[in-house]
Structure formats: C-alpha cells, structure tokens
C-alpha cells in the first residue's frame, strides 16, 4: 500500500491562540474590538531589546514579520497590538492539537515549531478521498479558529514543502509527488538557512534546477544534509514519525457517520469492534488481559472505560459483557464520533480442545475465570481473595494471598495443629479465672456471658517472629464450655509477667 502523509502548517499558531482566548473573554466585554482584525504581535526580550516572535495576518500584511525588533514594527504601524509571548505555549498547543488530530489517523507526530505530521496511509477513503479528507481537516481546524494549510503527498518531505510553499494544488496524487516537488523553492527541503542562501545566490530558485546536478557535486558544494533531505522528499530515504501517542499493537477503530448518543448505539459499536479484534487475536493465538474502550466525543473530550481479565481471552461474549457493564458510565454529551478499542496487554492463548462432557475443570476452568472477571468488574479486584499457605506459625501470617487464580501453593497446608474455623479479625480481650500457672482457665467471661470450661487442650506456644515483629508470645488453649462450644483462647505473655492478658481468637467447628 502506498504511504500517504499529511503536513499541517499553522500559519499563526500562537497569535491564533491569543485571539481565541480573547474571544472567550470577550463574551463578558461587549465593546472590546476583536484581535482578529487588528494587527497584533507577540514579543519577547532578547539581547536587551524586544523582538517579535509571532504576528497575525493583519500585521503581516502591513509588513511586520517575525524576528523584527518591536521598535521597528512600531515605526511602521504605531497602533500595533503587543502582548508578551509565553515561552512553552507552542509545545503545549502542538501536543494538544496532535492529540485532537488522532480522530483522523492513529499516527500523529508533532513537527515543531509550527506544524503537525500525519501518517494517513489507508485513512483517506473513510472520508471519501484525499481531497475530502484534507478539506475536513482544514474545515475543522478553521472552525476552531486556526489558520492552517494542509498538504498531502507520498513522502513527508514533499508534504511539508507543499504545505508551506505550494502554490496551487496542495495535494499530490499517488506516486506523482515528483512533479509538485520540482516547482518548490529550496527552502521547502528543510535545509539550513546558509545552504538556502547559497543556492539562491547561485540562481537555483527551484528544486528542478539542481535535482539533475550530479550528487557528488552537490555533496561537495552543499554538504551531505541537502542530499539527505532531497532523498527524504523523493521517498528514497525512509522517514519515521514519532507518534504523539504510541500506537497500541492491538487497536480497532470505528468512525461514525453521525454522532452516537444512545447506549444501544454504543453497544452496537462495541460489539463490532470486539468481533474484529477477537477474530484477529484468535488468528494470532493471543488473548487480551486488559482492554480500553475509548469514545471520542465531538466536543473533543474522550470518554473511556477499561477492563481486565484474569486469563487471556478472546471470547467476544464474555468481553462484551464485561465492557457492557460499564457503558452506563460513558457520558456521550453531544455525541460520539469515533470509537477505539485497544488491547494494551495481550498474552499467548492456546486454543483448548473442547470437551464433550461438561466436567468441572477446577481452577483452570475458563468459565470460572470469566465469572471472577465479571465479579471483579463490579466489586473490584481487591475484594476477591484466594489464599495459599505461608511458612509462619503466627496464625495471622500463616496464609498469604495468591496473586493469580492458578498459582500453586509452594508449601503444604499444615494440619498437625488444630486451627479454628472462625478466626476473629483481631483477638478480643476476655476475663479469665485460671487456677495454676500455665494451666488452662477454669472459666472466662466473654461479651458479658460466663463460660465454664469443661475440657481443654494446650498450651500451644507461638513465639513472635523477632525478625518481623517484636512483642510477647502467645500461649494458645483450645477449650470447650459446658454448652459444647469450642473456643481458641490465648494468654499474651508469661503468667509470671506483671502484664499479661487473655484473649479469645476464634471458634472451632
């Protein structure tokens, strides 16, 4: 497929922005005259004088240009409007505009100081052709208040040159970028000012005049940079754009003819995107672990929902259910014009042979992980726990949380010492009557009720793990009261210590 590139040149980027801002403020001030008609420049101090950094169209017509000293401009036009330039305004503006342009193509690169570069290969037919595509960009940017020139060609270099120096036709046809390139001046090749000056001095005012000169002569006179830029414009050297947003390797896009505002519409879009993406994932034996569904609204805002799965999946119905649960959170506003589905995280997912009998596959079962995904998307992953044994005697530390559904225990579950079925989150203090040191208590009072102990086992001493936590040890007793209820009690510290306390920590089955 032929590569196509678009170069957008913002002729008065920063002054346009100041005008727009004044427009927004002018809603309050009725009698303020618009900056649009007035000659208007931005200034910045440089080497002890004020230098003009940007001009608007009206000022340019009067002969004021960029790089002029402000005093000179005032001499030409005494009532020129002046404002202080903001140093990092251009970078911010370009980045924001580049992100906005993602609706036209996924690959948008910033081209400082005053342009954007778009890789539009395979995008233009969605707008009905190259001309309509370029017109749509121009119209939308003009509506926003930016004065732009949009050019399209097979190479970045030609598109860049056409946008800035093209005379009539700004769109070069497919495989015919040479003809428009020949008519461009040498500045259009993005070479240093000295080289341009030297070329002009020699009377070479158009590319056609020196493109036929042998390369060795050109290199000798003008250095290797000119040749490289010439190759880039001709497409003999590859030029790689650095996208403002890295492209997700798994991404599906669905532009809409008319803005979508209903939940049903969003669902249909989601279903379509999932079907195409899952088909691709299935072919490549991959499954997605997380997905992001982005909705680009016509007012420039982006609404998005994301999901995660426990196991790689390319199951359309399951993923649709997960995402559909969150559709209610999308605010369509005035309408959504573009849907994008991305899979930032994918893993290899081998197809398993289907079983004829419906036996439970245990923890490996796909249906189980899909169920957990559904639960997690509503209640959050933090409320889902699975425990594995950990090598600690201290009861609270004897289990650890498993990170995945299919993580295997590294040690065996201990069952040599009895452990209660119900363990209180924190031990509750009790009052106890104990006859002899290190004997189990005779009775204890817990929640206002006196329990008479009939049978008891113990003690089981569990020491603090000093490398984790300092403190007193626990002497655990298993006791049964006269009603047959079984408790797990412990005494914190030695009986002979001045301070020791009794606690109840759990109930046995």
């Amino acid at each position, binding site marked *: 497929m032929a590569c196509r590139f678009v170069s957008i040149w913002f002729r008065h980027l920063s002054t346009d922005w100041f005008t727009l801002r004044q427009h927004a403020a002018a809603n309050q001030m009725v009698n303020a005259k618009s900056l649009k008609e007035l000659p208007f420049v931005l200034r910045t101090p440089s080497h002890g004088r004020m230098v003009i950094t940007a001009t608007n169209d009206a000022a340019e017509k009067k002969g004021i240009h960029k790089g002029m000293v402000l005093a000179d401009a005032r001499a030409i036009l005494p009532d020129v409007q002046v404002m202080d330039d903001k140093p990092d305004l251009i970078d911010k503006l370009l980045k924001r505009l580049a992100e906005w342009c993602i609706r036209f193509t996924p690959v948008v690169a910033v081209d400082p100081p005053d342009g954007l570069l778009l890789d539009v290969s395979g995008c233009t037919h969605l707008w009905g052709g190259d001309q309509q595509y370029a017109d749509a960009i121009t119209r939308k940017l003009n509506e926003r208040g930016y004065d732009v020139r949009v050019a399209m060609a097979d190479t970045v270099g030609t598109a860049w040159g056409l946008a800035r120096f093209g005379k009539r036709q700004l769109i070069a046809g497919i495989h015919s970028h040479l003809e428009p390139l020949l008519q461009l001046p040498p500045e259009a090749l993005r070479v240093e000012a000295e080289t341009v000056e030297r070329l002009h001095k020699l009377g070479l005012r158009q590319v056609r005049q020196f493109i036929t000169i042998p390369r060795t002569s050109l290199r000798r006179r003008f250095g290797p940079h000119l040749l490289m830029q010439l190759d880039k414009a001709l497409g003999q050297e590859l030029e790689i754009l650095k996208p403002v947003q890295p492209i997700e390797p798994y991404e599906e896009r669905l532009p809409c003819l008319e803005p979508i505002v209903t939940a049903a519409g969003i669902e249909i879009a989601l279903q379509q995107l999932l079907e195409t993406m899952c088909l691709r994932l299935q072919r490549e034996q991959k499954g997605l672990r997380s997905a992001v569904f982005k909705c680009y609204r016509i007012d420039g805002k982006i609404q998005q929902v994301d999901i995660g799965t426990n196991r790689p999946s390319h199951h359309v119905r399951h993923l649709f259910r997960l995402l559909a649960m969150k559709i209610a959170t999308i605010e369509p506003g005035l309408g959504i014009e573009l849907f994008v589905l991305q899979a930032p995280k994918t893993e290899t997912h081998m197809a398993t042979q289907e079983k004829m009998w*419906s*036996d*439970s*596959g*245990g*923890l490996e*079962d*796909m*249906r*189980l992980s*899909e*169920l*957990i995904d*559904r*639960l997690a998307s*509503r*209640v959050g992953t933090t*409320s*889902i*726990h*699975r*425990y*594995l*044994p950990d090598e600690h005697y201290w*009861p609270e530390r*004897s*289990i650890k949380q*498993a990170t995945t*559904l299919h993580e*295997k*225990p590294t040690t065996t*579950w*201990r*069952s040599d010492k*009895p*452990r*209660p*079925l*119900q*363990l*209180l*989150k924190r031990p509750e203090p009790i009052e106890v009557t104990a006859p002899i040191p290190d004997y189990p208590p005779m009775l204890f009072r817990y929640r206002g009720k006196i329990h008479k102990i*009939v*049978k*008891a*086992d113990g003690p089981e001493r569990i020491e603090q793990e000093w490398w984790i936590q300092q403190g007193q040890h626990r002497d655990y007793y*298993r*006791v*049964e009261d006269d*009603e*047959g*209820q*079984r408790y797990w009690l412990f005494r914190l510290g030695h009986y002979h210590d001045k301070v020791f306390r009794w606690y109840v920590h*759990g*109930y*046995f*089955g």
Partner: protein
Amino acid sequence: MILQERADVFARLQTDILRLQGFRMSGQVTADLGLGPIREAFPNGIFPTGAVHEFLSARPENTAASAGFIAGLLSSLMENNGTALWISSSRALFPPALKTFGLAPDRFIFIDLQKEKDVIWAMDEALKCGAITAVIGEVNKISFTESRRLQLAVEKSNVTGFILRHQLQNINTTACVSRWRITALPSVVMDDLPGIGFPQWRVELMRMRNGKTGVWDVQWREGRFIHAPLVRMEEEQSKQTG
C-alpha cells in the same frame, strides 16, 4: 417373596409421587456424603445437589458449627477437582482450618464485599456458573424473591448453594429446598482421654422439600461423619412437607 414385591411397588409409587409433585432429579449422581441415617430424610435418599440449602446461625459459635458441617459436606462434593466460592460481607472463616475437613483451602475463592446487596448479586452470578461445585454465602437476611432467583439459577447450572443466615429475628419463608440448624454439642472423647475430642454437632433439619424433617447427632471423625445413636426418637416421626 410377597414382601419383596410389595417393597418394590412402594418404592415405585414413591418415585411416582415425587415426580408428580414436580421434583426433578439432578443429573449428577452424587456420592453418599457419608450422611448415613440423615439420607432417609432426602427425597429418593439422595442429598439434593443443584439446590440451595439454608443454614440458620445466630451467634458466631453457631456459624462455626454450621461452617464445620458444610465443610464436611463439601469434602465429598469437592472430591473431583471442585472449586467453591465463599461470598460474604462479614467473613471470619480461617482457610487453614478447612484442611481438617479434608479440603484444600486454595481451592476456595473468597469474595469479601461491603454491601449485603452485592452478596446476593454475586451469589446469583456465581450460582449460574457451572464450573464451580458449591457457593457459600453469608447473609443477614434474604427475601423470598431473592431466594427464588438463586434457586432458579442453580436449577440450570447444578451448582450447590449454601446460605448462612445470621439474623433470625423474623425468619421468612424462602425458596430454598431445605433449612438446617447446626448447634455444637460437647465433643466426643475416646477412652476417657483428657482434652477435647472429635467435634460433634446437633443437626436439625427443619424443612426439606419433598422430604422429611429430623434431628440427628453427628460427629466428624477421621475425615467422615459418624452418627451418634438417635437422640429424640419422637422427633424422627416422618412428616411430609410440601
């Protein structure tokens, strides 16, 4: 000979009656579960899987006893590589203790929620999933409609559901197939040894659809249920319940 024939006729008639009453056999042929005489209370003498069972427990001590009895049931149900979900908003279950009942605690997935409403929702979702063996939900109260939803969910998926109810102020009717109350009994000591013996519970089956009610004393010993001699013979009178 005649007696044998008569018994056959009775058995056939009983299954016919159950069928007419709308009782459907779950597709899965279940193991004995080691329930012994309790089985006589079940329709056709089989513990109903693919149904929701309700356990009443007001105090945490009772909850521990109920959890112990459920764990005993699960040890046979989950024998075949099964998994279980434990859904609760106030869970105190300590996973390592499940090992005592012959269960692998890492085969349990615990879902700890904040809101009671989410517990019912999560149970409903989980009971629809045929990949799991059992779902245990701890709730304070459950309405008839909610229990009906759960019962409808399990009838399709054949998952066994257990509901542990904590709040017993007003016990409403539910669509669950059975209602149990498990209370702890003094443990059984062998040969006058000191200390605590095997856990013992009083199992009250208060309601059983197409079955009978009854009271039994059950011990958990060496990985299976052992039945103490029946205590209250008078309560064992068969009562047919709808």
